[in-house]
């Protein structure tokens, strides 16, 4: 792995997150916000993999988050499986759901993918409510989802540090997978399809296959962090499928920079804390976020990372070209 700007930025972010509790570990509210930021960072990064890199307008990502959360929630409450297995189960269940929704949708053209996945997303909420006999908890939600255990230690709400570092490990794993994926041949196939779809096809690239694989991986990552979320917040309900989260994740991606890894991670932290600071504004807060979203798209389409890439910072080495930013690990030559 060649050291480049993406790796430096990502490593920098992870180190800062790792040492932050030295200052804030006594402030449980800030710790909570940081944990939530990490959760959203994973979800936003996975979504960006589809929207930004894959050019796949999948709008059902929040649904996969809920599927991961409900998979582990239902299995650990009703079947008594360990929450650690639940994390895995959440990832697998969401990944499978991703394949199931991808099979009929991804053969369609871009705009139909957006419409179909949005419709699918809207169906999950009602399905959870009508599925009350299957143990979904219906409208009221599932409660209480058991915490993780490590030997005799039980994760609890008085001590957030264990949650914090567990979440950091999950974040690091997901960022590593994402980085590897972007710079794999699969990532190259998406660059090729975006540059010239006919030429890419004539050289043997199958859009459907590439799209299905990346959809499954993004869904699995989202399901994994959804499962963690379920154990962390103890209670889940169909309310998590509301618009707020849907739109907030999109704002995080746009703010950090779509297809500008690890932009969405930065977006997740900035927007989560900004949202908390603006809480006194009440309704005007979301109004402001709507305006921010439109303004970012109009004026800064590549987000924060797009802006940073334009500035030459000697510390980070020379400026990357567009091609290098997209596929730095794929050799330009031997």
């Amino acid at each position, binding site marked *: 792995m060649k050291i480049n700007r993406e790796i430096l930025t990502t490593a920098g972010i992870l180190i800062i997150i790792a040492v932050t509790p030295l200052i804030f570990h006594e402030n449980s509210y800030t710790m909570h916000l940081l944990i939530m930021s990490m959760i959203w960072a994973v979800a936003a990064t996975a979504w960006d993999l589809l*929207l930004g890199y894959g*050019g796949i*307008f999948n709008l059902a990502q929040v649904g996969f988050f809920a599927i991961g959360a409900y998979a582990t929630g239902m299995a650990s409450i009703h079947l008594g499986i360990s929450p650690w297995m639940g994390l895995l189960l959440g990832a697998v269940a969401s990944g499978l759901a991703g394949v199931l929704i991808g099979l*009929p949708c991804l*053969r*369609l*053209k*871009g*705009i*139909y993918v*957006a*419409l*179909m996945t*949005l*419709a*699918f997303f*809207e*169906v999950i909420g*009602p*399905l959870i*409510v*009508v599925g009350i006999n299957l143990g979904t908890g219906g409208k009221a939600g599932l409660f209480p989802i058991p915490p993780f255990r490590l030997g005799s230690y039980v994760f609890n709400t008085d001590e957030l540090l264990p949650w914090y570092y567990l979440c950091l490990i999950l974040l690091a794993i997901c960022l590593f997978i994402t980085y590897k994926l972007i710079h794999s041949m699969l990532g190259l196939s998406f660059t090729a399809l975006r540059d010239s779809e006919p030429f890419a096809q004539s050289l043997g690239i199958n859009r459907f296959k590439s799209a299905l694989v990346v959809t499954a991986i993004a869904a699995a990552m989202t399901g994994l962090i959804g499962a963690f979320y379920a154990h962390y917040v103890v209670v889940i309900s169909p309310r998590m499928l509301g*618009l707020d989260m849907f*739109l907030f994740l*999109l*704002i995080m991606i*746009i703010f950090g920079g*779509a297809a500008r890894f690890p932009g969405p991670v930065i977006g997740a932290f900035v927007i989560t804390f900004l949202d908390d600071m603006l809480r006194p504004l*009440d*309704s*005007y*807060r*979301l*109004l402001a*976020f*709507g*305006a*921010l*979203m*439109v303004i970012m*798209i*109009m004026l800064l*389409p590549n987000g924060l990372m797009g802006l940073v890439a334009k500035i030459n910072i000697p510390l980070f080495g020379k400026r990357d070209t567009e091609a290098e930013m997209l596929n730095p690990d794929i050799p330009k030559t031997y």
Partner: protein
Amino acid sequence: MSLNDLIEILISGITIGLVYFLIAVGFSLIYGVSRVLHLSYGSFFTWGAYLAWIFAVKLNFNYFWVFVLVCPILYIMGMALERFVVRPLRKRDNFDFNVLLAGLGVALFLDYAAQAFFGARTKSLPSLLDGTIQIHDFVFSYQQLTMLAAAVVIAFALWFFLEKTRQGLALGAVAQDPVGARIVGVSLNKVYLLTFGISTILAGSAGILLAPRFFISPLGGWKFLIKALIIVVAGGLGSIRGTLYSAFLLGILEALVGWLFGLLWVMPFWFLALLLILLIKPHGLLGSTADH
């Protein structure tokens, strides 16, 4: 299921279908003409109802004046959206993606602006007309009948505009072939402005007509946007006749599913129906294959 039940389901399905047609037709028109997936459409639906609430409840105008006053406001809002958000994006790469996200941003802005101004609690509009009428065993409210009449009038007016007026024909020309239309002297920017203006009026009017039945709330437009979306995709993106057919089809399905299993099952069934239609006809009932 008795015969009377069946007739009742059918009547209710057709009524719902007409209402859904009203909601979806503006969305269909915008996509057909300008290829914009207009995700803030639902918010204009909400704003139409709120504007009507200001004039009808706060200022005590009657419905005739409400429409006369609200329509121009909606028209200007729609044109402003096209001019200041959509048009600048059209000149850049990734138009589809950016306009989709910008639409969501505008929706967020408008919905929470409504919440900030009008509060989170639902509001209601008075009925268009009070009273009921009985035909055989079936009772209709005047509200229901006026809504039906209004839907028919609006559908007819739209047909007349698109088929019989010069500007309407220009819209059709752009929908079929924007490059060709420009060559014969149609100004694309003017057509897009007009389309957004008219569609916004259609969204707002649907909001006003439905408000006496469904209440008005800041986020209420989303439910209808999603329904409009499914209807329009099932009917074939950009085909107004397809939108009409699928609105009736899904309206009757809704009445049937609601009667058999309860309203919660409606969305899952709609989604299944959509999947089925797209599996058989990948471009919807009457979708053209030309543009994809």
